[in-house]
């Protein structure tokens, strides 16, 4: 069955950052230097081709963009400056918008103004709501305990309801991703038990990002810093998310420091602050090929995260040093950053924290199933007339 070409697709994805894909003439250098391309997943060339040709149905069902961690070697090698690395990045952005059932992600990626306005509006609403709540029952001079401006049990409930909303979006989008890649995009049926057999892939890739560390394996002088910092940032982020969702009441109690909880907060903060500064610096300096082209959403991502960490640390310091008014004010600002950030999660680059390990997991299942498929085919005698 012939696949229908959508000639307008290349223009659609150009809005997501793939501006040079039309230059590619398919020499295949990119797939040769790529440490991850293999027999089954022949990216980036194949993805470049599908994109050029406007094979939208093909791209929405592919896992390939998720298997790339953007080391940038393909873009360095490309004789036509078609920037395969950025193309894969753009496809990831497009896929995030494709998985997203609400259509919000698409708007964010396509228009920086909409995204910034949405962030500002959410921040403003959050600020108004928190100030209203604080002043209606609390005292700006009290940070924790009785009569606190923003009591920790309230924040906990606030966080959990946000988390629930987030989880709903993410789970639905992840299911959509599963449907597209594993049902619609797979020509054969995948045995159900493979999902259990390969389950270990999920935490393994989530916590180690091992594949990212392999990105540099084909280089003469491997450079592991991006992987290391990225891992630190991600682990810091996850730790902080767990702290905020589960232990926020212990975190906010004071004035004594509870080391059993706070130590994790400190470690996470180090990871986050180092990571955000490192990535902002790279994006400003355009040191490496993968940071040369920053999409609007990339900037919102790092800057917002940086502000969250900064205000988080500031309110902690103010709290411990007894400047409760300042602690409350920075806390409000902190939450004004956190809420849009969290609400933006399923519709933004951030979602790759879920999609990537899922893609590794699905890819492992796919490869396993494909190998079985071939065995089954060969186990029947084939008569050639």
């Amino acid at each position: 069955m012939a696949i229908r070409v959508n000639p307008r697709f290349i223009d659609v994805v150009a809005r997501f950052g793939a501006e040079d894909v039309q230059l590619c003439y398919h020499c295949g250098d990119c797939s040769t230097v790529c440490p991850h391309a293999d027999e089954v997943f022949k990216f980036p060339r194949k993805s470049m081709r599908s994109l050029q040709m406007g094979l939208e149905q093909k791209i929405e069902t592919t896992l390939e963009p998720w298997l790339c961690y953007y080391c940038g070697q393909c873009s360095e090698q490309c004789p036509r400056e078609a920037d395969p690395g950025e193309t894969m990045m753009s496809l990831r952005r497009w896929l995030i918008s494709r998985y997203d059932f609400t259509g919000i992600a698409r708007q964010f990626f396509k228009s920086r103004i909409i995204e910034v306005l949405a962030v500002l509006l959410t921040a403003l609403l959050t600020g108004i709501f928190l100030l209203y709540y604080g002043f209606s029952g609390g005292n700006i001079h009290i940070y924790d305990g009785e009569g606190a401006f923003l009591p920790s049990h309230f924040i906990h409930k606030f966080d959990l309801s946000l988390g629930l909303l987030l989880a709903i979006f993410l789970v639905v989008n992840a299911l959509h991703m599963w449907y597209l890649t594993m049902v619609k995009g797979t020509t054969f049926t995948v045995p159900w038990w493979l999902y259990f057999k390969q389950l270990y892939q999920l935490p393994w890739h989530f916590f180690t990002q091992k594949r990212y560390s392999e990105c540099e394996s084909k280089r003469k002088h491997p450079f592991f810093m991006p992987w290391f910092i990225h891992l630190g940032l991600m682990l810091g982020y996850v730790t902080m998310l767990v702290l905020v969702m589960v232990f926020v009441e212990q975190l906010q109690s004071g004035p004594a420091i509870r080391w059993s909880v706070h130590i994790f907060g400190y470690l996470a903060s180090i990871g986050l602050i180092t990571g955000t500064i490192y990535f902002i610096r790279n994006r400003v300096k355009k040191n490496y090929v993968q940071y040369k082209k920053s999409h609007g959403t990339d900037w919102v991502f790092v800057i917002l995260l940086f502000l969250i960490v900064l205000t988080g640390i500031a309110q902690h310091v103010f709290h411990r040093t007894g400047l409760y008014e300042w602690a409350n004010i920075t806390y409000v600002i902190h939450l004004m950053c956190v809420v849009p950030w969290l609400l933006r999660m399923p519709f933004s680059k951030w979602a790759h924290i879920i999609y990537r390990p899922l893609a590794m997991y699905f890819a492992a299942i796919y490869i396993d199933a494909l190998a079985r498929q071939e065995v089954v085919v060969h186990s029947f005698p084939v008569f050639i007339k």
Partner: protein
Amino acid sequence: MKNCRIGVYICMCGTNIAKIVDVEAVANFVSGLPNVVLARTYKYMCSNPGQEMITQDIKENQLNRVVVAACSPNMHERTFRSALRSAGLNQYLFEMANIREQCSWVHKDTKEATEKAMALVYSAICRVELHEELESMSVNMCPNTLVVGGGIAGMTAALELADAGNSVHLVEKNNHLGGNLARVDLTAPYLYSARDLLTERLTRIMNHKQVHVYLESKVTDLTGYIGNFKATIQLLNGKPAEEKKSVEVEIGNVVVCTGYKEFDASRIVHYGYGKLPNVITSFELEKMIRAGCIETKEGKIPRYVAIIHCVGSRSQEFHTYCSRVCCMTALKYASEIKSANPACYISDIYIDMHAFGKGHEDFYRQSSEAKTLFLMYEKDDRPVIHKASPKDDCEMLIEVNEKLSGETIEIPADLVILMVGMEAREDSHEIARIVNISQDKDGWFIESHPKLEPVATTTDGIFIAGTCVAPKDIPDSVAQARAAAARILARIAKGKIEVDALYSEVNEEMCSGCRFCNQLCPFSAIEFNEEKKQSYIISALCKGCGVCVAACPSSAIKGRHFTDHQILAQVDGLFCEIGM
């Protein structure tokens, strides 16, 4: 042969010959032969000191025959002949023995190779003894030229010749000059206007005193030989044959620039040309562009345009060759359509993108930058065009097995442009017969040498240029036209033309007038004298191939420098017993 004083020179060719052949032994053997005055060996006979050695010896030892045993005569016969000339000796009193290609390069055993070298040298000596002094002949060169075909090549050649002050007769079949280029809007890759390229030439030709333009005319006959042709030009004018006026002109040379015609796209059923209204050929698109409006038959502006390459070219069924201009022309269309309608999506369906010329690769890149969708199909796995269903947003759907992705895809199209290839004109065999040149299997005229003589033909005085030789683009056609003109101008400047002394002669006393040779001569050099009832050879046309010599039942024809005596002496020499 009495009074023969032969000098024999054996070349070592560095080590090429000396490594296998014992050149000193050959020299020793030769020096003992009768009539051989001296035998020398030398590292490189073809070098200046080597040639000087020969000249010196001729003068000092009164040599009257020279044999050089070295490489192939193709390589250095001219070199040594000129050495003879500079010593005042007739250049035909020379013979070469090829002991490199025919001996040292193909043998391993020194003893056997040396024996063979001796035999070869000995046979050359036997032959050279019978050589005669021959003088080359010269004929007058008429400065007028006939140019057949008024396209860009013909016009260029005509102007080039006329600007040098020579009279040119330019014959064109149509009622206007310009040929296929006049049907084109812009040219690839620099997007110069074809009209601009032509107008300047057209006005100059029409006003040029030396160019006589014959529109709606045809060359119907050509007689004579180089420098002295007579051509008959017939005016067509749509009148019945008996009323047609004809002119006879005297000319020295002919340039054939009859061009090409485009492939008939309806021969390929896959594309539905002639059935689907919006499947058009490249020339039909040119017409639209020149009219200033690219639209479908229904008068709509196309949103999707597909361009299919290699229509009639590069396939076993139709033409196996590449038509060379279509790839860049297709890119030109992409650029022209895009600039007329930037919202239009263009798919370019090709087999291979041939972007070999100056500026072509950049043009290809520009087209990629403009987001032309390049799709590759396998040779002989042609795309198929269907009519789209009413619910589709396009006129047609093209199904392609896309090679780079390995997918079978469907491309929407409102307008399909078929890049029709070039083929030889159906009447090209007529002109080939009239001017006596050959055609290859595809009908293109054959050049005298594909690399070194690209505009000359095997008939002296007949030149070919442009797309009647093979598909080519404008710069190549112009270059060929100018090359042909330059060749002719050089001959006109000389005033006379030297004819090689190696032609055949008919012995009138022995000729019985059977006319066997008349039909056999591949160069039409033999004519029949009705009065004497005998054949005679036009020496200016004869190439000395020897067909007539072999065929003549009365042995009346002698091939100069290849007489029976000389050849038999050479054969005898080769089979002579040589003891080492």
